[in-house]
């Protein structure tokens, strides 16, 4: 358990995982954070990541997949470079969240959980992201964008396309 010889993760993340399994009374409690960190690094939770996490926590791969499939924020397929998450929960919905989502669909030409052919953007409709005060809001990777209008969205997308958007991880 814990340390793995041929890790698929970066040395920093591997070291973080080595530590993570030691800090919980039950090592399997580290499963969800591990899955999230693995997804942040690789872009999605690959089969290889599942295998290594199972090995690190002394679980069977099936148990990792059971948890992985439960959480909608965990992906098993690659997303675009910038993952656009549009909130349509109640505050955003009242303030035009669906209009923003429809606009995104139209401009990007993709639907929910889809990725543009160039791999730059992917789109997701998500539940409350905790930005109700500034609704409608969306999150691109870990960066928040608030008080949106379709025009603002166009500007944002252009910024990201030009490589000037923040890429917070």
């Amino acid at each position, binding site marked *: 358990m814990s340390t793995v010889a041929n890790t698929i993760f970066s040395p920093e993340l591997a070291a973080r995982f080595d530590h993570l399994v030691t800090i919980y009374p039950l090592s399997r409690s580290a499963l969800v954070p591990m899955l999230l960190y693995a997804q942040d690094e690789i872009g999605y939770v690959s*089969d290889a990541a599942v295998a290594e996490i199972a090995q690190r926590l002394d679980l*069977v*791969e*099936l*148990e990792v*997949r*059971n948890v992985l*499939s439960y959480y909608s924020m965990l992906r098993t397929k690659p997303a675009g470079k910038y993952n656009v998450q549009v909130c349509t929960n109640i505050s955003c919905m009242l303030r035009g969240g669906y209009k923003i989502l429809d606009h995104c669909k139209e401009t990007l030409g993709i639907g929910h959980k889809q990725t543009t052919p160039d791999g730059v953007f992917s789109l997701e409709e998500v539940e409350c992201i905790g930005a109700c005060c500034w609704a409608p809001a969306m999150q691109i990777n870990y960066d928040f964008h608030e008080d949106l209008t379709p025009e603002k969205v166009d500007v944002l997308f252009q910024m990201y396309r030009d490589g000037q958007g923040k890429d917070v991880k």
Partner: protein
Amino acid sequence: MADVTFTVDGKQITAPAGTLLIEACKTAGIEIPAFCYYPGLSLQAACRMCVVRIEKMPKLQTACTTPVAEGMIVYTETPDIAQARKATLQLLLGNHPLDCPVCDAGGECELQDMTFKYGAADSFYAEPKNHREEQKWSPVVYFDRPRCILCYRCVRMCGEGMDVFALGIQNRGSSSVIAPNVPAHMSPDDLAHVDCEQCGMCIDACPVGALTSGTYRYKTRPWEMNHVATICTHCGDGCKTTLGVRSTSDGSEIVRGDNRDKSGINGDFLCNKGRYAFDFANHEDRITQPLVRQPNGELKPVSWEVALDHVGSKLRALRDTRGGKSIGVIGSNRITNEEAYLLQKFARTVLGTNNIDHHRTADYVSFAQSLAGHTGRTASLNDTLKAPAILLVGGDPTNQSPATAWNLRTDVRLNRARLYVANSEEIKLRRQAKAFVQLAPFGYNAFAAYLAGDNAAAASAASDSNALSAFRDAVKAEENLLILIGSELRGAELKKLIDFGLTIPGAKFALLSDYVNSRGAADMGLLPDMLPGYMPVGSPSDLATEYAVPNEPGLDMLEMFDSAGRGNLSALYIVGSNPVARYGIDPASLKDTFIVVQDMFLTETAALADVVLPAANLYEKSGSVTNSYGDLQQVNKAGDRAGVRSDFEMIVRIADKIGADMRKLVPFGKGLRADMGQSRGAQSGEADRHAVWLTANNLEPRLSPFDAFAILDEIQRLVPGYNILRLQLLSGNDQHLSPVAPTPLVQIGTRRDQVLPANDSLFTSGTLGRFSTMLGDLQQNEAQRLIQIQTAAD
């Protein structure tokens, strides 16, 4: 724990504090329905069917998670409860297909029963049902996803019960689905599969028809079968399996095996062999006519009368011309006690030879002799479920006696039993063990010596001497230890381990063997040097005096074949055994021997025979068998096949053709001598001892020489330790018997070691297993999986 008293439906009930309400009610005869609750597994409270009304609690409570409490007042059937259950059923039926007329579970389905009871005929849901195709997860496990009601029983059964964890639950909410451990996208055929022990416990636990069995699915309906509870013929645990049989044009075909009423010694458990590997009985290669070798060398089908005449006259001629000692007899691990006893009696009294043996899969002679003079020291299989501490030396119960492994896992899980495992292999049960010590190859002798206090033996017992010493300290600190011994330990080293165990207060022992009646074969004296009950040949015993048994020990299995090779064995009578393949006998060495084989198939041995007699298998006869532990159980006739006969009948018929006195061989009718009023009990010297014993025990004489119970009576009368309780036997229960062997005259370990473990895996079962199509499929499935892993690794 202290008892608490509470009221259910106006009835006062007392149960130990901490008991779950659902269990307490069940014990009191009040049924609370539940889908997700399964006794012995962790609690789920997923189905909400067991809701009850408890006074002073605001809402309906789940009986499966509520412990009973003093003064609790419970109602289990009120209109609001019925309404709640009905609503639950409506939700479950929202996507459950109504294919009950073709579903395997139809008629045995808990959801069907509940719908019948609560009547959720109207549905509020108008949405179309979400259909998914059925999936073949393995040759024996099929999954029909829409039928699943997500009770999680299979998931817990596989993980907690079997320690396999091949099933899980994926996704969330209404899209939750039971998922096997080989997902479709990682499988070469793009279909999901299970990589597991194929025990079928998930199918057994499934309350509906979501999981179905590859052998039974779409074959018949439950009510079209007769259900016969009998004992599985495969491993030494002797589980009860219920065979579903259906009439065919040439007998009665076994269609299904399962653990239907869970009333056997195996409790909830049944492994893949007990569940699926009955199909050898229906195999197309089965012999159904006697075959006699013709002068041109061909085996030709003949009538029973011709074949038996030939065997009888030939055996009589050889006995009379070359002597009984030139004849050998080989018995089986899968015949009943009655047949084994009759076979050795036939050999010893009719043929006049002690040349009798069987394929020994554990050293029961040394086991019985080591325990001579001790009573209450042998364990029953039931003890593996309750013992506070267990020491397992050698053996691999997970693969070779799965019910033992199930019981040990359950004991550890539910009773926190302390399991100590010493093995030269990393067997799977080490995962439940409190301590595991890996012994050196062939290190069992040194290990037994080390336990007994010989510290010098540590180095040759195991490489890790610290672990070894901690292990010994822990074991020695135990009381009431259950010591399970694998067949690796024999003779002197077995005695050494038992002698050590006898120093532990309350320790009990069991020796694990490989087939259903391996223990019975040894108990019944299928041995050249031991009469039934481990009475040494040549020493005074009731049996020896009564039947004038030859005084010299006979030839053992290997000596018989050596003798045949030298041309000294005139005849060999083999019942239900395949020694030619098992011991790698050169067929040429048997060319001058007259061979009679009773078997189901033309095995390597039968192919060399002069006469082959088609035999019934254990599922086609009645009698009793004794498992590894010494638990006696009744075997009931389930299947039938035109043309075959039981080994019992064939032995009797052959003895008759030889010209034996049948009343002496099988005590039937009113005894050997007519009682004209002169006899005054056994002391008179005139009376028939069997008839006297029957009268004394208030038993009737049997009327037919083919009645196995006549021999059972004699076993009870003459075999020490076989004090059989008839009611226990005939009501299908198990009873524990301990051999009462005399203290050995010679040192244990001087006998030649002839134990040859069968080393069967989960998917093999000796020669018989080769004729089970399902076991073949499972082996192939396993092999393919290993190839896939190999390919993936490359």
